[in-house]
């Protein structure tokens, strides 16, 4: 299946990439998507995950066509 990956803020800078389209096996979690999109890097402990713009856990199941976003703690307001 195909998922769209997005990285934001300091994570985007660290990875040198703001996103990618990833091909991954039919059964995958957000953590699996991270591994593939980051080229096998360990996910920093404070990274937040959103699937289709809703906060999710790293172990949430990803479906074909999903948008999976990874970002550092938020600092708006």
């Amino acid at each position, binding site marked *: 299946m195909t998922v769209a990956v997005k990285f934001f803020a300091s994570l985007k800078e660290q990875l040198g990439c703001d996103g990618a389209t990833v091909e991954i096996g039919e059964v995958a979690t957000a953590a699996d998507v991270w591994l593939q999109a980051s080229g096998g890097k360990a996910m920093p402990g404070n990274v937040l995950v959103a699937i289709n713009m809703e906060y999710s856990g790293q172990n949430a199941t990803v479906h074909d066509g999903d948008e999976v976003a990874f970002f550092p703690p*938020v*600092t708006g307001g």
Partner: protein
Amino acid sequence: MKIEVRAAALDPWREVADYEQAQTALHGAAGAAAVFVGSMRDLNEGDAISAMTLEHYPGMTEKHLAKICTAAADRWDLLDTLVVHRVGELHPADPIVLVAVWSAHRKDAFEACRHIMEDLKSNAPFWKKEQLQSGHRWVEKNTAGY
């Protein structure tokens, strides 16, 4: 209810005045308006800050702000809510965020305004990068609100 993420400059008091004026259902019904405006400081953690860049997650930010405001309207007795948040480059004293809440009574307005602001700071996908004399740095966490 209005939610806006804006790259252009924000004049928060004008924004509140214009919105309130236009929402005629508030007139005579809203006994209370509680408003919070967060602005850029020229100092953070002891360092002078000359500029700031606010990044967000387009789509998710607006969706999440709407969810926060809807949750507040379920919990308190509110007549209307307005949230405007800047993105892009900001300078000291520039307004960053406006949260305005109207209610018949002040208790609901005060509590909902503060709650929306805390939820926004804790959960809405915005990130601040500060420009210092020595380079830039990402803000890693917000100060405590309670």
